[in-house]
């Protein structure tokens, strides 16, 4: 019985950590390049979830194959990232690069407030639940526990794919070098002929898409309620800070730590599940003030 509890906690933590990772890595990417902590990131996560759920309902209503739900997830994530994220960057963020951090934080906070209302206006306040992905894939039996394959395989797999491809793109491709160069020194890169404005826009869209993708995956496993974005932004902040802001592999480790810590708490001391992520962050920052994977004096993406 004990083993099963531990296993269940580990599986929950893995699946949850993978979702948080997607959101946190988007946040880290945006911070690493644009130097902005995007408070509205949580709203993008929530909107990604709602758009996916809407697509899911539409697919069901139109009588199409329910398997289309999966491509719909990726599609909605990209749409939200490109349309909402793009609009945000072009209309607002672009005007405040390099300004005081207080103003940047507050601007994105204002966007968060507006998006939160918009969300309620479009999707209402009643919980949304589209469980097509869960029921399509069924469950697997591990050591006597039935666990949904969606949460066991699909969600973590997507996270791993994102992690590996982000790493590969940033380290080994021309695009990645350009992004790293712009992150390091925007002015010099611009002087060398890099279109830094476009790099910023694309990075923000990518980061926003990742948040929306996290939401899209969440929509397959949990019910969507107003306020879900607010909870997630704080959690992904905690992950990004634990990892060291702007550190991508770090975000994966921290997301896993926090996901596992939280799900273990759910089974052992359910009153404290919401506290655990912050305690982990607190303890880490106590010993490593800039986060687990911080590198002194350098800026890395």
């Amino acid at each position, binding site marked *: 019985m004990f083993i099963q509890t531990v296993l269940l906690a580990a599986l929950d933590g893995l699946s949850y950590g993978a979702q948080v990772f997607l959101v946190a890595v988007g946040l880290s990417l945006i911070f690493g390049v644009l130097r902005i902590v995007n408070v509205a990131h949580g709203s993008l996560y929530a909107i990604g979830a709602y758009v996916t759920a809407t697509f899911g309902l539409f697919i069901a209503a139109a009588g199409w194959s329910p398997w289309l739900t999966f491509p719909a997830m990726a599609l909605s994530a990209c749409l939200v990232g490109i349309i909402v994220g793009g609009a945000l960057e072009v209309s607002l963020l672009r005007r405040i690069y390099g300004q*005081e*951090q207080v103003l940047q934080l507050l601007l994105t906070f204002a966007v968060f407030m507006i998006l939160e209302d918009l969300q309620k206006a479009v999707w209402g306040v009643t919980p949304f639940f589209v469980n097509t992905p869960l029921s399509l894939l069924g469950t697997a039996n591990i050591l006597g526990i039935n666990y949904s394959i969606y949460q066991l395989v699909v969600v973590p797999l997507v996270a791993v794919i994102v992690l590996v491809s982000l790493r590969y793109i940033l380290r080994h491709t021309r695009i990645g070098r350009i992004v790293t160069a712009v992150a390091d020194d925007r002015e010099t890169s611009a002087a060398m002929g890099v279109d830094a404005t476009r790099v910023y826009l694309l990075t923000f869209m990518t980061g926003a898409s990742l948040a929306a993708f996290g939401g899209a995956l969440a929509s397959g496993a949990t019910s969507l309620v107003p306020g879900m974005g607010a909870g997630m932004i704080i959690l992904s902040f905690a992950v990004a800070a634990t990892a060291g802001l702007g550190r991508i592999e770090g975000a994966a480790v921290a997301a896993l730590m926090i996901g596992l810590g939280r799900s273990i708490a759910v089974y052992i001391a359910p009153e404290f599940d919401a506290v655990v992520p912050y*305690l982990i962050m607190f303890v880490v920052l*106590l010993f490593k003030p800039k986060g687990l994977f911080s590198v002194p004096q350098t800026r890395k993406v």
Partner: protein
Amino acid sequence: MRPELLIGMVAAAALAMVPVLAPWTAVMLTIALAVGLTVLGIVVLLRAGQISFGHGLYYAAGAYTVAFLVNARLSLDALILIPVGGLVATLIAVACGFFVVRYRDIFFAMINLSMSMVAFSLLEKLYHITGGGDGMNVARPTLAGVRFGRIAFEAWMFHLTLATTALAAFLVSRYLASPLGKALEAVKNNETRLEYLGVSSNRVLHIAYAISAALAGVSGAIIAIVNGHVSPEFAYWVRSGEFVFISILGGAGNVLGAFAGSVVFEVIRNYAAAFAADYWQTILGLSLIAIILFAPDGLSQLRFRRKKRAPP
């Protein structure tokens, strides 16, 4: 300092008349002034270039202290409850401060945020102690030994709050003008130089942090008494964000601005809620964006590191 003092006195005198002329605004103004105290705390930290996205923690600490004391049936007077609320918040801030003041900028904001979220979760989860998400009711205490009816109590609480804020505004402006307060600007502008002068910037920040928490605690205590109810939302990060928002709205870095901002905010909130119940957040968000993008002069008090100076 002189003109500010004069404006402050005129404003306070004008406000003192308001409940007589328009009694229905008394509660709204009391809340606005009390919130202004927390915002004043944010303003103190802004002098050092730091923002706390978690001052809801100290606000809630003051409020819940009052709630616990009242529910413990000790029959304490409001004149005792309010300072005790401030004191508890200060003690928490002094303890947490040892950790918090080692951080700057984003990390400072986020450490505060995470601490307030821990408080928020605990307040919500430990329902047998704190009443959980429903919060706790706070019975109306005596004021200066007298048990007032509702209307009279509201009027007297307004005057008490006005007096408290006036005193706090005066003391904080004295503090900001003192060498210790001036050192805060040095934390923002050039910490290394401050350290070379033999002043510990962490200590300077620690004191400012305790002062700002004391203000937030008093503010929360007043709100608990006026509202007659406390809830975990007090420690929620969106609430803390509102405090920062108000400080910018009021022309950040300015003692009187804190109160002007919070009165404007409370009015917007009340009337926006009446006109467009579901969209008052949007209205606030849009006004915040407008301030940041189009009224940079209104933010002239915010002189942070990044500001580029013209070459001499």
